[in-house]
């Protein structure tokens, strides 16, 4: 089943011709309208005219998250503000978030790609879509919502949280499709079980899970405990939001990236050179239809591989493999993006805490846990238990307030955290995904 059969099954030569035309038009537009790209292209000694074939994309410089931060809030926008109808921003960052703007056409394209994604996952008009992605600045909730409406399904905009109510509504409203993070789906199933509700008896048929890394083993567990087809979806707010790529229910083997809107590349994160098809590396995406904030060769920092092999579903769009990690140190904890440097910034803002810390990430049951280990030096130490306990609570609260992630603070003896020899090891990730 397709949502837009013509475009989803466009023969490769036609698809690539369309990509080139859209790429060239995007390049002209950003070079003329966005000072950052003018400067970046000029510094690399290139102009939009160097791109006469798709292969020429490699001649252009990369765009990074830092470039986006430096352009806060609107400097990378390629459309005038009066044409921007929606603004989203990345969640949970210290300092400034990463801001993206959408024109009406961008919203329409996003809705279509998300509708395509729903169909690829096996959803259709008539489904009742229980959308438990967060609504707000985060792109997950509204992105899935608009796609569900475009599809013509009934969408329940439940957003995240309040698990008991989620379960009641899923049961009473007869939800057939669930969208949330994979770990939250398992958490809900456990909570339901505790209340005597077996998820396998609900009407759920399809689950569309994303916003955090998961594995084939976890898919098996979800499908068994929730009795639905669990589909992996990929997206990031910088590029669009959810619906950049998704698995098809026919194969469940790799995520089709909508190539009539995005050009994917896989590079070696150290050299910046492309790797061979099928090899793992960092995903780089160029947007070729976006008006609000087009991005040229955006380094996602997500590690994956790319294949152009034909898929049994009939879609001609390339597939990326399940995300296998990050080329930077970003952690995804319960769907919240966290950089160790952000936690460090919170810690050093607390008087007396030295920047020697260790983050231990684990998964207890179905939910991620974060332990922040802080060394107790003489300045922090007290002979009274209550003083040290209030220090722990303060660390936990400030991290929650600043980053939106719940953690437990653990006080450790001085010098027990490894000192940096070159690059300090700040994170132990014990999650077995």
């Amino acid at each position, binding site marked *: 089943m397709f949502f837009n059969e013509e475009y989803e099954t466009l023969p490769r030569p036609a698809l690539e011709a369309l990509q080139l035309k859209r790429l060239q038009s995007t390049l002209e537009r950003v070079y003329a309208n966005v000072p950052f790209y003018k400067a970046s292209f000029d510094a690399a000694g290139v102009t939009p005219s160097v791109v006469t074939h798709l292969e020429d994309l490699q001649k252009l410089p990369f765009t990074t998250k830092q470039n986006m931060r430096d352009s806060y809030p609107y400097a990378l926008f390629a459309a005038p503000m009066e044409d921007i109808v929606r603004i989203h921003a990345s969640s949970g960052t210290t300092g400034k978030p990463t801001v993206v703007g959408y024109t009406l056409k961008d919203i329409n394209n996003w809705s279509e790609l998300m509708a395509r994604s729903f169909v690829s996952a096996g959803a259709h008009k008539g489904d009742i879509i229980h959308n438990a992605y967060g609504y707000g600045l985060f792109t997950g909730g509204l992105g899935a919502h608009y796609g569900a409406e475009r599809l013509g399904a009934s969408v329940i905009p439940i957003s995240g949280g309040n698990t008991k109510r989620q379960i009641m509504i899923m049961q009473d409203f007869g939800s057939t499709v669930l969208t949330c993070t994979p770990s939250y789906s398992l958490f809900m199933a456990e909570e339901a079980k505790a209340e005597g509700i077996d998820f396998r008896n609900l009407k759920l048929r399809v689950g569309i899970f994303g916003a955090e890394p998961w594995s084939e083993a976890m898919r098996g567990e979800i499908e068994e405990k929730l009795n639905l087809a669990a589909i992996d979806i990929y997206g990031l707010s910088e590029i669009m939001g959810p619906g950049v790529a998704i698995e098809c229910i026919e194969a469940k083997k790799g995520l089709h990236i909508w190539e009539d809107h995005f050009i994917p590349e896989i590079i070696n994160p150290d050299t910046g050179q492309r790797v061979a098809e099928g090899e793992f590396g960092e995903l780089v995406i160029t947007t070729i239809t976006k008006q609000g904030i087009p991005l040229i060769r955006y380094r996602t920092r997500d590690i994956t591989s790319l294949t152009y092999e034909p898929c049994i579903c009939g879609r001609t769009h390339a597939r990326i493999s399940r995300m296998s990690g990050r080329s930077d140190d970003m952690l995804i904890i319960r769907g919240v993006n966290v950089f160790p440097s952000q936690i460090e910034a919170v810690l050093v803002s607390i008087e007396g805490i030295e920047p020697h810390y260790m983050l231990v990430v684990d998964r207890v049951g179905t939910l991620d846990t974060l332990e922040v280990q802080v060394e107790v*030096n003489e300045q922090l130490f007290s*002979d*009274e238990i209550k003083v040290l306990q209030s220090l722990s609570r303060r660390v936990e609260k400030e991290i929650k307030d600043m980053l939106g992630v719940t953690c437990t603070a653990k*006080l450790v003896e001085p*010098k027990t955290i490894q000192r940096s020899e070159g690059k300090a090891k700040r994170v132990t990730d014990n999650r077995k995904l």
Partner: protein
Amino acid sequence: MKVEQISIFIENKSGRLAEITRILGEAEINIRALSLADTSDFGILRLIVNDGAKATTVLKEAGFTVSKTEVVAVEVPDRPGGLSAILQTLDRETINVEYMYAFVERCGGNAVIIFRFDETDKAIAALEAHNFSMLEGSRLYNM
């Protein structure tokens, strides 16, 4: 009237107490009294020793976090109600006891209790006013 106590931070993992007592033993430091306060994650070992300065130095060299605290050693008559009389006095004066523990040795016929108050000087004055006997640090360290 104040007595010097040293406090040491210990993580809740095996062998830490053994390590501290080994270091003190090798430095020929004698522990006169101790108390261990603990939570599920960490503990605070509080010691009164015969040479606080030396103990602090050797423990810091071994990488421990050590701090000094002033506490008060009060003689408590070794009979029913002995401790109660002291605590009632402190309560009337609205002085809070942060923690307390017993000294190993007796002093004459009396027990010795180590007190950590929220207001040390006020506590000493109140105890003196009510004729409770307190021990000097120098005497305590070498008892």
